[in-house]
């Protein structure tokens, strides 16, 4: 999943394009290692995968002792460009302030650029209950669900996170972590439809609008199963957050397959559909809200993003404390700090995603009213009501659905 | 136009050929005729233009000016592959990817001659290598490669066969052997051979006619004996064998003999052996033509005599003894004496006079550089 560029990067469009491409290349380039010599691919992950064969969550050492009081530090693995950054001082201002206030040093690492790849890297150690060198990890809903399900996380002590009550109501109860025992949202985004305003003057109101003959060969959809299939399911009247099964999933997949084989859908893409919107190859897409915000900021207000009438998907990245972390209290202090509306607003102004913290909008109003009014950063209740979190899948479902989805998109 | 079937033994004519590289002439207004079926050598030091001349005949260089005729046909503007000419390259240039047999058959195949492999085998027999037909060139010794290169050229029966320093890469003994061999083959096939070399002995051993080249021009052309006995320039006198050249001035002429004053001594030179018969000349004599006269020895008839001088060096070489004699006002002269009686007859430091038959004396243009054409030690090998 891509992360749009924050406002902090240089305004020169060429430089921005380069930065963006470099970002895009990070996730691809690590994979091109796999491509170059498919024979010796992803060895670390592969060897880790071999370890999976053993006893999942088996040889767990006892609960880790929390050494937070003695070791005033916390280590946080996050996605790239996902925290406010000051180019001049080359520091993260909000982190600096956290250290000032609490005396806890933060070791911040932009370690994650792909849920699966990161999971592959740390899964072996997590299974053995070892310290993976991080006290906070940031993973997308479905992966967060898997990690929690496998017992790879420590429960959060809400007494240490009073600000957790600021979590938006719509995010307070999620199927993969009922009651938010193990996770708290970092940022969220919408999956919906976007289109070129000049070329598609009537706009896209429903997913079915994408299948209009005049858009043949100029439509792209996401290679993220939960967004693409989820939007089609919503279109078909399925509540993706609710109870649904094979029938609903495969009915939606059939639509996708049909639109691919008819040539209506040009390509199924991960993080690079935005380039195709810019080049004009794609006129309408299933895409992510944050990307469109940035695209409009960089290239003029040429595109519009909307949740389809039948509803859109809402995904989040979630902060969790891995099993082996010896700095749980410090981690909780950090999470609490970022749930302070003022701090959350500062981050939101930089990363342009949906801010999950109640009150951040009001805080934002104080220094950037235009951002406070951006419904893609601070969606109103009506919008939120139309966005749905794809329900957690069982391991068996996840394997099977993914398998089918990948084969439909040519893999 | 010389068709590919032009028959062997055609004559080769170069008519006022000039070749310039970046404005500098490598071959300068050169004309020569190589008679059909002759063994012709172009002899000269490196850089004299002999290889450029050869390459122009092969069609590998285009003359800047002049014409080239083979068997009467003007081939100046034809390409290398259109000329009835084949070359034995200095480093043989055998095709490493082909067998010996296929190397030899290459030209025949290109001209779609009948039975290329059969004829290639015959050519290999001519050079006595039929047993190596299936080898690759890099499995052969230098001498064997040389023979294959020769077979590869000869098999095509070219009007003119060009040899570019063909023996240069061989050791001395093998080279002598191949000289005889080449001559035999040339006699046997009767082709016109043009042989480029810097080795005067090689040229004289094999060639009917030798052209001595220097600085893009032919200094002198003739049979080996002619060139040796009667050089016409200081370059030829020095490059072909060795010569003692003495500066002098003509003081008497008009008859069959020219009288020259050489450092106060009077020397006679046959008029037909003198390039100039007046003014400044260089009087020349080959070292082996000089006799050492000890005190009191009589002067033979019809001899020029200079000296006395002092023997400054004696070196015994087996066949002969070589002396250096320093004659006041003339400089140092070399003398070769056949070891007919065995051992050195004259000792170091002895005072001797030098005598030479008048008919062996020659005179060159006094403007010639005395040292021109003296073979540097590293080139004389």
């Amino acid at each position, binding site marked *: 999943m891509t992360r749009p560029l924050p406002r902090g990067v240089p305004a020169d469009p060429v430089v921005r394009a380069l930065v963006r491409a470099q970002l895009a290349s990070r996730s691809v380039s690590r994979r091109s290692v796999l491509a170059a010599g498919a024979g010796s691919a992803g060895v670390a992950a592969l060897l880790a995968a071999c370890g999976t064969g053993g006893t999942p969550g088996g040889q767990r050492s006892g609960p880790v002792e929390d050494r937070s009081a003695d070791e005033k530090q916390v280590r946080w693995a996050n996605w790239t460009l996902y925290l406010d950054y000051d180019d001049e001082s080359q520091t993260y201002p909000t982190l600096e302030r956290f250290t000032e206030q609490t005396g806890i040093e933060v070791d911040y690492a932009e370690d994650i650029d792909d849920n699966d790849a990161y999971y592959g890297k740390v899964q072996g150690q997590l299974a053995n209950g070892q310290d993976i060198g991080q006290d906070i990890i940031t993973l997308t809903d479905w992966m967060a669900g898997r990690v929690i399900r496998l017992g790879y996380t420590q429960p959060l002590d809400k007494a240490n996170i009073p600000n957790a009550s600021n979590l938006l109501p719509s995010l307070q109860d999620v199927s993969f972590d009922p009651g938010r025992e193990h996770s708290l949202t970092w940022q969220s985004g919408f999956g919906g439809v976007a289109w070129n305003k000049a070329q598609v003057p009537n706009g896209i109101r429903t997913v079915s609008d994408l299948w209009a003959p005049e858009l043949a060969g100029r439509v792209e959809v996401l290679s993220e199963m939960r967004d693409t299939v989820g939007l089609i399911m919503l279109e078909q009247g399925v509540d993706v957050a609710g109870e649904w099964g094979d029938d609903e999933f495969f009915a939606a997949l059939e639509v996708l397959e049909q639109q691919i084989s008819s040539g209506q859908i040009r390509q199924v893409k991960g993080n690079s559909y935005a380039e195709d919107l810019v080049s004009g190859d794609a006129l309408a897409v299933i895409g992510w809200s944050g990307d469109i915000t940035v695209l409009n900021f960089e290239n003029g207000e040429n595109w519009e993003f909307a949740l389809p009438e039948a509803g859109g998907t809402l995904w989040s990245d979630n902060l969790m404390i891995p099993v082996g972390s010896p700095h749980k209290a410090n981690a909780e202090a950090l999470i609490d700090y970022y749930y302070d509306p003022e701090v959350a607003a500062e981050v939101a102004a930089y990363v342009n995603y949906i801010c999950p913290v109640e009150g951040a909008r009001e805080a934002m109003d104080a220094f950037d009213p235009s951002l406070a009014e951006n419904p893609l950063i601070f969606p109103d209740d009506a919008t939120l009501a139309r966005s749905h979190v794809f329900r957690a899948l069982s391991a068996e479902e996840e*394997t099977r659905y993914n398998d089918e989805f990948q084969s439909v998109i*040519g893999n | 136009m010389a068709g590919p079937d032009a028959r062997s033994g055609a004559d080769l004519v170069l008519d006022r050929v000039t070749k310039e590289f970046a404005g500098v002439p490598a071959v300068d207004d050169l004309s020569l005729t190589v008679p059909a079926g002759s063994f012709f050598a172009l002899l000269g030091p490196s850089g004299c233009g002999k290889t450029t001349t050869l390459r122009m005949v092969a069609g590998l260089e285009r003359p800047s000016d002049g014409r080239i005729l083979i068997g009467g046909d003007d081939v100046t503007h034809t390409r290398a592959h259109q000329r009835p000419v084949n070359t034995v390259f200095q480093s043989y240039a055998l095709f490493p990817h082909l067998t010996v047999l296929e190397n030899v058959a290459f030209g025949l195949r290109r001209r779609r001659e009948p039975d290329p492999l059969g004829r290639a085998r015959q050519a290999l027999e001519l050079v006595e290598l039929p047993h190596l037909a299936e080898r690759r060139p890099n499995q052969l010794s230098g001498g064997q490669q040389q023979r294959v290169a020769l077979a590869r050229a000869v098999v095509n029966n070219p009007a003119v066969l060009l040899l570019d320093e063909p023996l240069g890469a061989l050791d001395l003994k093998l080279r002598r052997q191949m000289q005889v061999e080449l001559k035999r083959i040339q006699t046997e096939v009767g082709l016109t051979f043009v042989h480029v070399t810097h080795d005067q002995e090689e040229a004289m051993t094999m060639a009917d006619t030798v052209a001595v080249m220097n600085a893009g021009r032919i200094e002198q052309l003739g049979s080996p004996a002619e060139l040796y006995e009667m050089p016409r320039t200081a370059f030829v006198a020095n490059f072909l064998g060795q010569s003692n050249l003495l500066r002098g001035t003509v003081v008497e002429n008009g008859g069959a003999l020219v009288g020259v004053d050489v450092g106060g001594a009077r020397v006679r030179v046959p008029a037909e052996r003198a390039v100039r018969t007046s003014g400044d000349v260089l009087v020349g004599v080959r070292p082996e033509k000089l006799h050492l006269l000890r005190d009191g020895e009589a002067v033979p008839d019809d001899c020029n005599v200079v000296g006395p001088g002092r023997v400054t060096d004696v070196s015994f070489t087996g066949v002969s003894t070589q002396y250096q004699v320093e004659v006041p006002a003339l400089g140092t002269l070399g003398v070769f004496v056949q070891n007919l009686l065995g051992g050195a007859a004259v000792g170091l430091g002895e005072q001797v006079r030098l005598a030479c038959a008048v008919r062996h004396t020659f005179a060159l243009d006094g403007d010639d550089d005395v040292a021109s054409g003296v073979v540097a030690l590293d080139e004389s090998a």
Partner: protein
Amino acid sequence: MSIVSALGHGQGGGGTSPAVAAPRRRARGGAYLLLAPGIAYLGLFFVIPVVALLVTSLYVPVPGGEVGQFAPAFEWRNYTAALATYWPQLVRSFAYAFVATVAALAIGYPMAYVIAVRARGRPFLQGLLLVLVIAPFFTSFILRTIAWKQILADESFVVSAIRAVGLLPPDGRLTATGFAVVAGLTYNFLPFMTLPIYANLERLDPRMLEAGADLYADGPTTFRRVTLPLSLPGVVSGTLLTFIPASGDFVNSVLLGNTSTTMIGQVVDSRFFKVSDYPTAAALSVVLMVAILVLVIAYVRRAGTEELL
């Protein structure tokens, strides 16, 4: 002929003379020691992973287990199942790689020839042309390919021009097609084709060409009978250096293709990272490796022993 000797095959010429053979033999024991770092490195980063790959390729899912959870087994049907499902992608990969290799040869050989033979003796021009061949490597592979997409976009003047001359139908396109993938592969691997051929032609003795001309071969014939056969080692290296990575490549297919141009590398990636189906990913990798090995051996054999053209 082994692959290694095909790659290292020089231009013939001077065989080892007996004079140098003796000391060389004495040095041999020490020379083998020089291989130690290479063997250690390859052992660590090639042999062990390959063994891990082979072992993983035979695993079976744990019944009712978590995503990506497998147990050791000897399930050879993983291979038949993978082949049965993904043979189209496998065949497509080799077909694309083959076409790209042929295209790269058709473009790269003349380039290498001009730089090495025609520009011989003009070092500045040679240097300039070589830099131009290598220059694309100065920017990232991804950036170049992304730039390509912009150049060949539906609205670009390139596509408009091609449509205008009727080579593409009015709604035809270049990106998101198999053609674009092959073109991208060709472009990205072109230097791997050009440089070995250049290196080979550069050492080509010009007297070989003169000998050809002297023996009645005109320009094209000399090329066919002399230059080309002598440059075959370079062609073999270039084609291998292009074909092998191109068959396993998927970046071009991801960026320039669409769902019907999927190459096997993409499948391995998706099996591995998206579906966590490690055994299938491993089995496909093994199949790819073996298939490439077989193709390469067959190719090198042929190139090595055939009487060249």
